[in-house]
């Protein structure tokens, strides 16, 4: 399965982030959106991918971008993970039906039954402007995301 390539309209979704809140992609039109699909909460590393992104929230805000984490973990796992790592951005539960949104983005690993480590940057019209899949064990960092957001900003300026 290949991730949705640049130029593809991003499939809309509405997923829960907490017991009483949902996030709907179409509500975010007008702002860049960074979708971070990841295999599971609690990866055993000193600095994980999402912790790095948390530190970079002020950078993402400079581009007015919305950051959303997505995995097949349930809300309670997300809640514990966010509390443990001090994550303040939404973690969405692609839990029921499991992996449906991940599949729609070409970001599902059938063998493992989890999301892949995939990144998507969407423009303000909800079109994929950059996508990348990293091997499960390789934290892709943030350089690709920031470069994509910078490209979007340049396009808007011209």
């Amino acid at each position, binding site marked *: 399965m290949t991730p949705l390539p640049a130029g593809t309209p991003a499939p809309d979704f509405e997923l829960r982030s907490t017991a009483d809140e949902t996030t709907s992609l179409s509500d975010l039109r007008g702002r860049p959106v960074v979708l971070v699909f990841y295999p599971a909460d609690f990866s055993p590393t000193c600095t994980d991918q999402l912790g790095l992104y948390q*530190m970079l929230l002020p950078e993402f805000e400079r581009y007015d971008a919305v950051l959303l984490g997505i995995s097949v973990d349930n809300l309670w796992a997300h809640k514990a993970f966010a509390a443990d*790592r001090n994550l303040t951005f939404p973690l969405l539960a692609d839990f029921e039906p499991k992996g449906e949104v991940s599949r729609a983005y070409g970001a599902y690993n059938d063998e493992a039954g989890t999301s892949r480590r995939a990144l998507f940057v969407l423009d303000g019209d909800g079109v994929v402007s950059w996508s990348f899949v990293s091997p499960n064990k390789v*934290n892709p960092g943030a350089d690709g995301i920031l470069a994509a957001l910078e490209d979007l900003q340049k396009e808007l300026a011209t």
Partner: protein
Amino acid sequence: MTTTGWQSTLTVPVDPERDHIQGPADAPVTLVEYGDYQCPYCGKAHPIVQAAQAQLGDRMRFVFRHFPITTSHRYAEEAAEAAEAAGAQGRFWPMHDALYEHQDRLTDPDLRGYAEEAGLDLERYDADMASHAHAERVREDFMGGVRSGVNGTPSFYINGARYDDSYDLETLVAALERAAR
């Protein structure tokens, strides 16, 4: 322009005016580390880097840049600023070594003790720490690292390419030797 895919490389070139560097400028191989003084993996890598430096000798240049993981390491930022405060007095490397050798003791009084042992002018050190005189520099290192694809600590770059292999001594030295040829 739209793109799919990405390859991480060192986007901030080594700058002798700004960077902390050990080894000759014309060495055929340059090893850059982005590190965090409180990160246990960096602590383990420290003697390995030193051993690699001993093995490569004049054929390698080593550069250290800061990448404090402030969300999980409460002392990392202050430690990085303390290393820069020492750097401002020409004593970066003794402070750098002291911090990595005492990772479990990095409170403010601990840092001041290492500053004293490194022979710093403590009045100037205290003023720098109180005003966070070097916070901007640490932030610049951090953001340069982010733009180079640093994804955790330590992250190494050999002649500008992110090194994703194991950093046990044998594997690291083999990679450095290949790059030095």
